[in-house]
Every structure is written in structure tokens, then in C-alpha cells.
């Protein structure tokens, strides 16, 4: 009622000229660079219905985000997939992203599946592998249905070794294979003899050495490692150099104490040291174990999964457990290795978007200036990316902090309602796989999820919770 007695403080939304005129008069004014909601009129209707819900979404989201942030992902051990991953069996191949059938799989995923069958000894070559798949004997299932994650194609077969991560706060476990390094690797769809040979070495040397080392060393608190790495210039999705180095510091003494030969110990340390992405396969399940803690919270619009299989991009919401909202995987805007162009690129693929979902990755871009060029941007853009992500998340992380932003916590708790309402999509840093099977990585860049999945998810949420 006292408006006439107050100093006018104006928020201008729309025409910038109005803002400029107000500023020239010396008025106290800020300008909103407004965007229409995702999908325009359709979204508007959903948002209006959302306002009529009789549930306390805010409280539910608060709980979901607190569970994500209070989680303490810890590396507790290693095992063989068929023995430790819940629901895994001998005929099953796990993959990244939402569910997909063989006929709809993209090149790199097909390549990785074929490689996986050869690695398992179920097929001699590509031809045999395809015959086996077409016989219907092999079951494909998303990693996310088994509490785990897979980078890029994300293919895991029953005899592959996996890390076991435990969320100590909530007693939830998650899983991921070990990182193979760059270039011709299974996760990018390569499946030649050298790829299989390296996988075998990982199973026969890397796995037993690491497994024993972890047993000797004891549990490793990944939350602390990620927090330190973020302060050292990693966002723990496209840059894991600091985190990998920190991991070596933690594990190297224990490796030396193992019962293996010096040659084997040296090989293991050299392998980890030569692969800046080694920690990615720990940061991903760390994020997964945290977001798992939020799954099933009634009335929450917080996203618990973002994942792509190279054909589809899918998300899941805390308040709609078990449901996927799926749209086409998008092209990646990025830089290419020599000899490759965007014509070679497969659409966006992999579960690594779990890092963004967990409150780092692309969302922590402002803390990782070293890779801004690789993902096609400037330092200023990296900072703006993180600032923009605060718009669509509910909290600032209580552990992962960005020194450059005055140690502000990373944007955490992606809220599907905010994405739709503000028309701002989550930003995703990613690698680029060749679209043909068997070739591998061709570049890296950035991309966005398809618009419809957020609208569909919010629509389903409103329909589910409307009395």
C-alpha cells in the first residue's frame, strides 16, 4: 500500500528500449532477457495447471535436493558385473541411455554391442555377433535399470569388472565399468582386436591389481575427491585430469603393497596416469549413487536421470519413478579431430550427463576454464553457462564449490518445471562418437537435450498429481 512512498525499483521484462529509457532517466532498473517457455502455448497450459496442484512441490524438491547433496559417494570395492550388478545375468548386455531395441541402435552402440559379444567369447566376429543378436537370445537393458551408468555407448557385459560405489549416507550402491582411455575404444563403438585385447588386459591385470589395492587401502571418499578436483579446474565430466591425479595419489601406495609383480603394478599406474579420463568412470557412478537417493520422492520435479543412447535422450523425475521421457538425441556442436567433420558425428550419446544431473559436469563449467575451447566456448561463456544453470536448479551445492565464483556451490538439483518455465535448457558437455560402428571418438563439444522431454515430463507430472 505504501508504493507511492517507496523508491521505485523496476524489473523490465521484454522490450529492451524500455529498460534503456528507464536507465537514461536514472531509474533503478534491471532487465530480464526473457525467453518464452519451452514449447510455447502448450507449455503455458501445463504451467497453469501446475499452479493448481494441491501438493507441496517445493518441500518435495527440497527433500530431493538435500538427499542429493547430503549423499556421500564412496568407492568401496570392485567386482565382476554378473556377480555384483543387481539383475545382471549371463545373456544381458547393459547400455547407456533409455531402453532401445537392436534395430533402432545407433552405429557406435551397435559397434560396442558387437565388441562386447566378441569380448565375452559369444561370437567370433561381427557376423556371428549379429546372428546371435537377431536370434533374440541377448537381452538389452539400460544401465539405469541396474543402478549403474555407462559412458558413451556404455556397453557392459557379464564378465566385465566394475567399480562398486556406495552412497554412505543412504546405503545405496551404484556401478560403472573402468575407463579404457581415448581413441579406439569400445565405448565409442570401436571393436577391433586391439580394443578387445585392451579389455582383456583390463580384466586380467588392471582389475585384480586395483581390486586388491582398494581392499588394502580401504574405502575412498569420492565426494571429497570431486570437491577438490572441481577446485582444481575439473568439472569431472569432460575434464578429469585433476581428479585422476588425486586418485593416483590415493591409490598408488596401496598398489605398491599388492601381491602383483612390479611390472604389473607399473603397468597399472602408467595406464591410469596416461588416461586423463580414468576418473570419469568414478565421477559418474558417484553422481548416480547421489541422484538415486532422490528417486521416488513423491511430488518432486527434480530430474534424477539424464541419459542418451545415441538415438534417444531420456530423463526421469524423482516424483515419477520408473518413467522415461524420451526425445531424439541431438547433434553435438563441437571441435573435431583432424580428418573428421560433423558429417561423421553420431548424435549425443552416453550416461555421462549423470554428472550434470548430480550437480557438476557442464553445470560446473565456470570452474573448468582449461577445457572451454574444447567444448567450443570462451571463459566468459563458461562462467555464463554456470550462472544460467542456477536458473534451472534448486540449490547451490554444499560441497562442490567454484573458487572463481567466490566459492559459490555448483548448481544442483535440475528442476524440470524451471526448465520449461524459463525456456532454459541444461547445458551438456560431451564427447562425439563416429556414427559408424567400430571407428571411435571423433571430437568433443556441447549440446542440449531435446525440448519435448521436459514438456512431456512436466505434463505427466501434472496429470499424475492433479487430484
Amino acid at each position, binding site marked *: *500500500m505504501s*508504493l507511492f512512498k517507496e523508491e521505485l525499483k523496476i*524489473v523490465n*521484462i521484454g522490450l529492451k528500449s524500455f529498460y534503456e529509457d528507464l536507465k537514461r532517466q536514472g531509474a533503478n532498473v534491471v532487465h530480464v532477457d526473457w525467453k518464452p517457455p519451452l514449447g510455447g502455448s502448450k507449455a503455458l497450459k501445463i504451467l497453469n495447471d501446475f499452479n493448481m496442484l494441491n501438493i507441496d512441490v517445493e518441500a518435495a524438491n527440497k527433500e530431493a535436493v538435500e538427499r542429493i547433496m547430503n549423499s556421500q559417494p564412496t568407492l568401496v570395492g570392485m567386482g565382476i558385473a554378473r556377480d555384483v550388478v543387481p539383475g545382471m545375468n549371463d545373456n544381458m548386455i547393459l547400455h547407456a541411455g533409455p531402453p532401445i531395441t537392436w534395430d533402432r541402435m545407433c552405429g557406435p552402440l551397435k559397434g560396442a554391442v558387437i565388441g562386447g559379444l566378441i569380448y565375452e567369447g559369444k561370437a567370433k566376429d561381427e557376423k556371428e555377433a549379429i546372428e546371435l543378436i537377431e536370434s533374440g537370445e541377448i537381452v538389452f537393458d539400460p544401465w539405469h535399470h541396474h543402478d549403474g551408468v555407462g559412458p558413451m555407448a556404455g556397453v557392459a557385459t557379464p564378465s566385465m569388472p566394475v567399480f562398486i560405489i556406495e552412497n554412505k549416507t543412504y546405503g545405496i550402491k551404484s556401478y560403472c565399468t573402468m575407463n579404457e582411455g581415448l581413441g579406439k575404444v569400445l565405448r565409442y563403438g570401436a571393436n577391433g582386436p586391439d580394443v578387445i585385447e585392451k579389455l582383456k588386459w583390463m580384466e586380467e591385470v588392471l582389475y585384480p591389481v586395483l581390486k586388491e589395492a582398494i581392499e588394502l587401502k580401504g574405502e575412498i571418499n569420492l565426494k571429497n575427491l570431486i570437491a577438490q578436483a572441481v577446485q582444481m579446474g575439473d568439472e569431472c565430466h569432460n575434464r578429469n585430469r585433476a581428479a585422476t591425479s588425486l586418485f593416483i595419489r590415493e591409490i598408488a601406495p596401496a598398489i605398491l603393497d599388492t601381491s602383483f609383480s612390479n611390472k604389473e603394478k607399473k603397468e597399472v599406474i602408467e595406464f591410469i596416469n596416461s588416461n586423463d579420463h580414468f576418473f570419469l568412470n568414478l565421477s559418474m557412478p558417484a553422481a548416480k549413487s547421489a541422484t538415486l537417493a532422490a528417486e521416488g520422492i513423491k511430488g518432486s520435479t527434480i530430474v534424477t536421470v539424464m541419459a542418451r543412447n545415441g538415438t534417444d535422450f531420456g530423463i526421469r523425475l524423482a516424483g515419477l519413478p520408473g518413467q522415461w521421457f524420451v526425445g531424439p538425441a541431438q547433434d553435438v556442436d563441437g571441435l573435431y579431430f583432424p580428418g573428421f567433420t560433423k558429417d561423421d558425428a553420431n548424435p549425443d550419446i552416453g550416461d555421462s550427463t549423470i554428472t550434470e544431473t548430480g550437480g557438476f559436469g557442464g553445470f560446473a563449467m565456470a570452474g573448468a576454464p582449461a577445457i572451454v575451447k574444447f567444448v567450443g566456448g570462451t571463459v566468459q561463456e563458461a562462467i555464463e553457462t554456470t550462472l544460467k544453470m542456477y536458473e534451472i536448479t534448486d540449490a547451490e551445492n554444499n560441497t562442490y564449490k567454484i573458487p572463481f565464483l567466490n566459492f559459490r556451490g555448483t548448481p544442483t538439483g535440475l528442476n524440470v518445471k524451471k526448465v520449461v518455465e524459463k525456456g532454459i535448457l541444461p547445458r551438456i558437455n560431451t564427447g562425439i562418437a563416429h556414427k559408424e560402428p567400430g571407428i571411435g571418438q571423433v571430437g568433443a563439444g556441447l549440446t542440449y537435450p531435446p525440448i519435448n522431454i521436459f514438456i512431456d515430463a512436466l505434463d505427466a507430472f501434472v496429470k499424475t498429481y492433479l487430484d
Partner: protein
Amino acid sequence: MVYKLIKPNSYYDSVTLMLITEDIKKHDDVEEALVGMGTDTNKEFLRELGMIDEELEKTTPNDLLIVIKGNNINMDELENEVEKLLKAEAEEDEGEKFYPSLDSAVKKLNGANMAVISIAGEYAGFETRKALDHGLNVMLFSDNVPLETEIELKKYALEKGLLVMGPDCGTAIINGVPMAFSNVVKRGKIGIIAASGTGAQEVSSIISNLGCGISQLIGTGGRDVKKDVGGLMFLEGIRRLIEDDETDIIVLVSKPPYPEVVEKATELLKKSNKKHVVHFVNGVVEDPTITVGYTLEDTAIKAALLCQGKNIEKDIYTYFDFLESFDFESKVKEEVSKIKEGKYIRGLYSGGTLADETMVLLSKEIGPIYSPAPLDPKYKLENINLSKENTVVDMGEDEFTVGRPHPMIDFTMRKSRLIKEYLDKETAIIMVDVVLGWGSHMDPAGEIAEAVKTARETSENYRCVIANICGTYEDPQKYYEQKKKLEDEGIIVFPSNASAVKFAVNVWKELGR
């Protein structure tokens, strides 16, 4: 041949893109161009122009479309040009911090209490609701907001003790800050509630030029005073001004409100001990205890007199009773002597209320006036682009502004219409308004003068051109420089719309054709 380029998920505001479209259209090879977002409106344009295909149909308001019709178009080149223009826009912003959403802006601007909202009407309701939830008053500039939304928002605002000015509200001055299309007026004791944008600009400007000042100017949007909304904000505005110790005189300006609104408004005024002047353009107030203004100019003058503690002694005042001397008689004769052919008046306005007032005042003196929105439906123009006998056109009407900025900002349409009317053998007199103030073009007189100059160079015959400057001496365009630009082209300039009409009537009568 149609060329197209779709850039998904890249939003730019429509004014920026329309300006870029204009630049792109200047290319020789380009027949038709649309650089815009994939909104329903833009897709409708493309359909009409035969420039749409399936892929374009599927675009969303977040996708940038570049669609060009023409021959041998180099799309790469045009794309580069568009990017460059968009970048130029972005570079201007350097060092400025904009917020991606209302939420973060409110968080930053501690104690924010007002939102000026000018986004597409379809979305404006939702954003307004959010602003109200944040405890902000709202000046809702957008048009095309559904009526039910307006009613809901205003009821909700009243529950929360907040104002919603608009939708479709171009003018408001709160606590001395002019927003959107408003003039730089002195601060003072006169409070204005207006359901009419240019009406409010005319009244507040004249009050200020007479040396008095405005406490608050609350624009409500035209629909507020009609039956359905029932004057929710018009009446709230009056209540607020009655409570406000800084306001001594209350002025109401509106097109005729719904009778019940008039009744409630006059009741409020009568119960209060504050003085008032009420002016409903083309409307009457039956109550003899209500002080009535007969023109916008008369309303302003009466308010100023009351503010200065003087009595109202005349029925209708004109500007010339106070400010400037003007030798009507000889100036009329001089103009008449120069007009060799033509007999009709053509009014080309950017202000809706100014156009209405002109029609009201003219029709009393010279008979029916044709218009796209006439006082009497019998005189509706069949083709809005073709004048007939005496015609007055508000070029700010939706029919003229679809897909382009308001004629107070963009003079393209009015200039070409002015030249067309000037070349019409039947025209004797052309009337225009020149609206100054924030929001308006920074050189409106220059634009009008240029069109008159071109017309006079093209035509052998003289037409009398009359302009009303709606604005104050403090407006950013510099009143006297604007006046001189008009006078240098032989345009007869008046400081109020009513006085401009009076001169036009005198010339018309003296011509006697």
C-alpha cells in the same frame, strides 16, 4: 524460390528481428524475407506468403527462422549478415548484466516493487502472475492478453494490495518515473487515473507545460473501465489517490466507461474532499457536482487552475487563454489562400485517443468523419488504406501494427500514407500528431518533416499540414527543436490536439468547398 535456415533454440526478441528483416529486405535479390522466431504469428505470415513447408511448420517459438524468397540468394552470405547484426546488438550490451528470469532479477534487485512487462500477450499473464507472487506491482504493456486473464490478475493483485496497470497500457508515471510511453513531467499535486494512453500523455504534458505537476499517473488500459473488468484498477487508482497526501487534485481520463464504473468513480470522488476534473472522450457525465473537462486540453487546464488555487470560470479553456498568442484569423486566411484544390481533412495519428478526440471535435463542426474505427459505424472505411472524404486514422490500431513496431517508433507507414494523402487531389488539410517523451522515436518531427518535404517536392499543389506536439519542454527530444523542424517545412504547429483541430476546422470552413 524460397530459401530457409532454422536455428533451433536461439531466442531473440521480435523487435530486434524485425529491424534485421528490414535490413535483409534491402538486398536486390530478396523479394520477401522473414527473420523471426517460429511463433504462430510468424508461421501464419509464411503461410500467407507461400513461404512455408513442413519443417518450418514444426518450428517452435524458441527457433530462429531465416526464410527468404528471391532469386540466386546466397544464404551463407545472408546468414553471416544476420549473425553480424545480432552480434552488433549483443555487443552494445557489453558490460551490462541482464537476468535470464524474473526470479533472479528480483533476487538481485533487493526490494523490487514494479515490473514493466512487454512480452507477447499469450505469455504476459503467466509472467504477470509471477511478478505479483513476488510482490511486484505491474505495468503490463502487452496487448492480446485474454480478458479472463486480465480479470483474474486484477482480482489477485487487489487481494495482495498491488496494482496491475494494463494490459495494453502504454503510459504510467509512478513516483516521478515515467515508464514505457510517458513524458518527462514536473512533479506536483495532480494525480491522474487514465484508461487511455495518449490521452494521459496529452493531459499530463499540458499540465506540466503550464507549470504544474503530477503526483502519480496510473494508466489502467482501455478494457479496465468496460463492463467485464468493471473498473477494478480504475477505481483502485482513485482510492489510492484519495489516500495519497501528495495528491490534491484527481483527474480521470478515459474513453466512456461502463455506466456502473462511472457511477462508482463519481461516488468516490464526491465522498472525498479532494478536487477533481473528469474527462470521458466522447462521453458525458450527468452529475452536476462533477467538474468536467470537455477536451484533453481543457481538462489539463482546469486541473492546473485548481492546483494553483484558482476558480474555474469558463466552460471550455484553450491553451491560448494562457500561454501563447496566436493570430488565428490571419493565419487561417494565409493558409486558405495557398490551397488551390482539395476540400477534405485527413488525419493520420499515432495516438488512439488523440485520433478519437479529433473525430469527436471535427464531427461536431464539419459532419461525419470516416475512419477504420469511426464514432458512428456507418462511416467505417471499407479499405483502411483508402481515405474517403474527411477521414481520421489511428495508425496504432492493430490492423496497421501487426508485425511491426508502433507508429510512435516506426514512421514508415505514416510517412508513406502522408505522401499518398498529400498527392490526393481531394485533400486540403492533413493533420498529424507528434508524440514526444520516453518510448517514442527520438526525432518524430524530423520524420514527419521529411515526409512533408518529399510530398511538397512531388506535388504541384499546396496542402495545409497541421501538427500537434504532445510533449513537454523537458522531454528528451527537445520540444523547441522539434517544433522548429516542423515549422521549417511550413507545418502549422500547435501545443495541443484541441487547438490543432480548432485551426483545421477554421481553415476548412474558410475554404467553404
